[in-house]
């Protein structure tokens, strides 16, 4: 079971991991991946627009696909939306498994797919006052395609 969530507010990495591991003594590995907003070349803010009726459903579909590929993996995938500043966390994927290989693989798979298939649109604001919508990236598609 990997649960997807969508929220505007910040998340607490330790609390999320603790909730996943609570009462379990059969899990040997937990991987927590945090994606952060980078201040590349003068970025001052990043706004994620989402499609309320669709985005969480698509995220949960990705999470279910990961859970089916790695049946022993438990996890939580949280994505934020709204306006975020450089240094802020934007996405958290926590996976846990009996052994570390599956936990790492499932976390990487979830991130590769979230980066390409989750229905978000990013708008960047720059130090010079301009703003632009981010175009879909070829390298992220390649990262996701390695799982096909």
């Amino acid at each position, binding site marked *: 079971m990997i649960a997807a969530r969508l929220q505007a507010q910040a998340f607490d990495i330790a609390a999320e991991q603790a909730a996943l591991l609570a009462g379990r003594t059969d899990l040997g590995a937990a991987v927590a991946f945090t*994606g952060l907003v980078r201040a590349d070349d003068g970025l001052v803010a990043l706004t*994620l*627009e989402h*499609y309320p*009726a*669709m985005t969480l*459903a698509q995220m949960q579909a990705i999470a279910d696909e990961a859970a089916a590929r790695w049946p022993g993996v438990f996890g939580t995938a949280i*994505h934020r939306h709204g306006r975020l500043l450089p240094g802020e966390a*934007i*996405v958290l994927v926590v996976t846990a498994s009996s052994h570390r290989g599956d936990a790492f693989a499932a976390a990487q798979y979830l991130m590769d797919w*979230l*980066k*390409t*298939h*989750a*229905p*978000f*649109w*990013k*708008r960047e604001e720059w130090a010079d006052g301009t703003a632009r*919508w*981010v*175009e*879909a*990236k070829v390298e*992220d598609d390649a990262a996701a395609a390695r799982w096909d």
Partner: protein
Amino acid sequence: MVQLVYFAWVREMVGTDAETLALPAHVTTVAELLDWLATRSDGHAAALADRSRIRVAVDQQFAGADTAISGAREIAIFPPVTGG
């Protein structure tokens, strides 16, 4: 009547985030919808000018150009997603 919803720069160019429209009888597929929408305003026309940059979801399911839209309640039009 169908609810049209727009996201990202499609929304900005169309000039609204949603509109409820009665579709003409000859508009039965996604491609026909985009052709017809493009005649409604300069904003619609500009937003939909490059169809390779347009994605559509019919009732929250990704759709292709030939997808039928009869009976659809909500059709979303947006750029390719840029992910998280």
